[in-house]
């Protein structure tokens, strides 16, 4: 699947550049793209290190355990394959809380921690587990209470009501999240059936 998408992005780009005469842009994009890929990764170090550090404190103080207990019913419904006492559950819950609070740069490091924990439960280390797919579905649709970045951008462009989008974002992201969870369930069932037959 990922091979196909990767190839399509490259091939369609190169073929279309033949007709649009953008080949020099494409050549440039290959080199520049590699550069910004590295910059993106390096740029993540600060946020990941900061939040992993803070989370370690919260975990040792028992805060993560407390939060897990509160959100456990939701998480149990979403991640039936993860044992409730497993550290993966704590990481998943911390990631969900960060998403909800709109602290996007905290959600990614916590999500990565959850992936690491989920990987320990995964029988096939190269194939995504069902719990991983659900975690990704919840994260890509990310239900948002306060869209911090967008509000900041609106302020910068002299909006009279920068926070006017809080309500619309909440409604839209809630619908998106419900859809993502439903789609995840649907495709999980289809996938199980297909695997059952094979």
């Amino acid at each position, binding site marked *: *699947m990922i091979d196909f998408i*990767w190839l399509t*992005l490259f091939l*369609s*780009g*190169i073929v*279309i550049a033949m007709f*649009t005469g*953008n080949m020099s*842009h494409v050549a*440039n*994009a290959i080199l520049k*793209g590699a550069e910004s*890929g*590295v910059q*993106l*990764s*390096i740029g*993540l170090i600060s946020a*990941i*290190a*900061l939040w*992993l*550090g*803070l989370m*370690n404190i*919260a975990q*040792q*103080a028992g805060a993560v355990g407390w939060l897990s207990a509160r959100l456990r019913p939701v998480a149990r419904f979403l991640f039936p394959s993860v044992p409730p006492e497993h550290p993966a559950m704590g990481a998943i819950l911390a990631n969900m809380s960060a998403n909800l609070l709109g602290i996007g740069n905290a959600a990614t*490091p916590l999500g990565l*921690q959850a*992936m690491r924990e989920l990987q320990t439960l995964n029988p096939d*280390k190269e*194939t995504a587990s069902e719990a*991983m797919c659900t975690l*990704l*579905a919840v994260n*890509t649709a990310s239900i948002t209470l*306060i*869209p911090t*970045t967008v509000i900041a*951008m*609106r302020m910068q*462009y002299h*909006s009279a009501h*920068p*926070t006017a*989008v809080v*309500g*619309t*974002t909440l*409604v*839209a*992201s809630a*619908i998106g*999240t419900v*859809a*993502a969870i439903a*789609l*995840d369930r649907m495709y999980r069932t289809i996938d199980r059936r297909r695997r059952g037959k094979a």
Partner: protein
Amino acid sequence: MMQQAISAISEWMLPLLVGVILLHGMVKRVPIYSAFVDGAKGGFGTSVRLIPHLIAMVVAVSVFRESGAMDLLVKCLRPILHWLHIPAEVAPMGILRPISGQGSLAMMIDIFQKHGPDSWLGILASTMQASSDTTLYILTVYFGSVGINRFRYALKVGLLSDFISVLASVFAVSLFSGMIHF
């Protein structure tokens, strides 16, 4: 008033959260400094593991965009989007949103400059940007960090729910601007 309260909350959230975590750790007798440093150590390794995955994906997306293929895709999809009542001005943004977060942010700013952030289109672009995330990037980073190569149905679910998020944004903005009445 309400608006001031919300922007105050978003400014206070991060510092308050840090303060609460540190204070709570102290109360529970956690050695907070060494616990922080211990946890933060993992940040470097995780980021470095991501480098090859992000290079692969960012190069491909750059090629796709710079060649003009992205513009062509937007042009082809425009009639369908029009039929779904998605305004043509935000259509490129909706298509770009799951592929490139920076790209769609740039398009949102472009809409702000042309139509104003408080216009109907400005509000819609803001909602679309805020209510969804960069699916391709998240998949690359999350799966890349643990070395997973087979995504199974995760990409399909992500892209489909992004599409639903765009429709939901149009719906939510229409709802709030009073274009839909119950």
